[in-house]
């Protein structure tokens, strides 16, 4: 059934849809560390590249089943991120941002000099042998990423991250181990970037370290900022628009980065919460409906 549905979409549209899907995975990943935890990462493209190269090499050298490959790429990236994050996440906001950028450049330079990643020539990635068609796999990973993001946001773990974002001193005074949560959030974020990178590598069939530079990181950041830092629907929206835009606006492709730059400034000055940010939909609806949490009836006992 899926096969028929997929076949009815022409290849060009399919390519755009898959790009959107990968964009959503990457943006949701960045949203965890930047939107939810409030730590600006300017080097997320590096994590994407770690996942892409790990996935490509796993396919080329070991030929593990693709589904396991996706998972492993994510895990490898998460481990790399935790190793990098452990020392640098002690830094505050701006310093951290610059440090992530610095690390991203170092990762790129290392890949450009490694024999195994074929240096500056890049790697050609064979199409994986899977029972499900590639677009469907991307769709499944997108759904899982959305569910995981929503789960994280509404949990004890997610509340701790939001507390760190809003006020570190208050958060640690509530018993939250800031360093540990930052590293964990960084690793989760990188895991998503790694899976996104792995899918990207296998869908495109060719990867080069230079594809994962600073501008790619800005691509991801623009998606999250456009939709609204910390908002899952916003991030999905932003990623969809900006992943599809280059295709529909081919005639102005050379202005793309110009528009992104202006967009970042404009959003910060006029709509810092993004097009859809600033609203916590669940509690907004609950408040409008006048729903009270369980046990409120006991509240009057004080007087």
């Amino acid at each position, binding site marked *: 059934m899926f096969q028929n549905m997929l076949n009815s979409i022409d290849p060009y549209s399919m390519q755009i849809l898959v790009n959107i899907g990968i964009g959503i995975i990457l943006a949701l990943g960045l949203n965890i560390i930047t939107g939810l935890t409030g730590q600006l990462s300017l080097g997320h493209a590096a994590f994407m590249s770690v996942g892409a190269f790990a996935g490509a090499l796993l396919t080329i050298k070991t030929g593990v089943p693709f589904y396991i490959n996706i998972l492993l790429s994510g895990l490898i990236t998460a481990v790399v991120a935790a190793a990098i994050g452990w020392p640098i996440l002690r830094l505050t906001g701006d310093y951290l941002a610059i440090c992530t950028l610095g690390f991203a450049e170092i990762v790129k330079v290392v890949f450009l000099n490694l024999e195994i990643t074929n240096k500056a020539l890049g790697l050609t990635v064979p199409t994986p042998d899977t029972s499900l068609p590639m677009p469907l796999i991307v769709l499944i990973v997108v759904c899982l990423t959305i569910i995981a993001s929503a789960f994280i946001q509404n949990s*004890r*773990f997610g509340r701790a991250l*939001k507390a760190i974002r809003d006020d570190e001193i208050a958060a*640690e005074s509530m018993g939250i181990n800031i360093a540990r949560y930052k590293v964990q959030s960084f690793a989760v974020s990188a895991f998503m970037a790694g899976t996104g990178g792995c899918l990207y590598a296998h869908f495109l069939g060719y990867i080069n370290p230079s594809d994962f530079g600073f501008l790619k990181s800005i691509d991801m950041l623009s998606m999250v900022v456009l939709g609204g830092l910390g908002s899952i629907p916003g991030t999905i929206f932003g990623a969809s628009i900006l992943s599809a835009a280059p295709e529909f606006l081919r005639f102005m492709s050379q202005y793309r980065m110009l528009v992104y730059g202006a967009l970042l400034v404009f959003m910060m000055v006029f709509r810092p919460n993004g097009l859809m940010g600033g609203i916590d939909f669940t*509690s907004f609806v609950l408040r409008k409906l006048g729903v009270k*949490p369980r046990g409120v009836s006991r*509240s009057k006992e*004080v007087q």
Partner: protein
Amino acid sequence: MALLKLDNTTIRFGGLVAVNGVNLEVEEGEILALIGPNGAGKSTIFNLITGIYPPTDGAISFKGKSIAGRPPHVIASGGIGRTFQNIRLFGEQTVLDNVLIGAHTRGNWNLTGALLQFLPSVRKEEGRLLELAIHCLSKVDLAHKAYELASNLPYGEQRRLEIARALAIEPALILLDEPAAGMNPQEKQTLLKMVRNIRDDGVTVFLVEHDMKFVMGLSDRIAVLDYGSKIADGRPEEVRANPAVIEAYLGKGAAH
């Protein structure tokens, strides 16, 4: 044995000695107030106890164990809750979420719990935390505002929300930094009852406050700080009659 004990605690910022060799004991179950003129070092003492600043010299022990120099989150988990002089709520989050964050140390499920939140044991814990949060909110009469944004509350209610958030740690000791600041007399009266209730629930209260009437009516014991040193310590009526205290507040000659 005292619940909290400061032993010759000192902190210097550069050349300034903000807290100078303070000895202080907080007994279990009491309401102790720390008073003193502006800049006497009262909030700094709170920041020393909660680990925001490590002391330059001296010891701090809680439940008989040294906590000086431990990171804030460890001290908080050990059972010390606090509020802040300049309110530090998570303003863009709901009242309920603020208190749930306070209940952080009462839960165990982490990232795995977040991803597997459909498991019965995770749901059970989440339900327990929610119940605790509502309970703490009702202690300060804010449960009916659970889904409001914290920043939308009036000032007095924000101060009470900070108390609820600190209570959610289920602390043995709660530090209240000027809880009555900016409240009108009626709100102060309500707050007074709430703080007494908190103590009656078995939480030791240590507060910094400027409002003398509030302090005199509430505290079992009062310590007075001036220029970083403790100048008096005793029951309210003793402290009120202490010449050194009157001098610190009103200047030389006023005691006569």
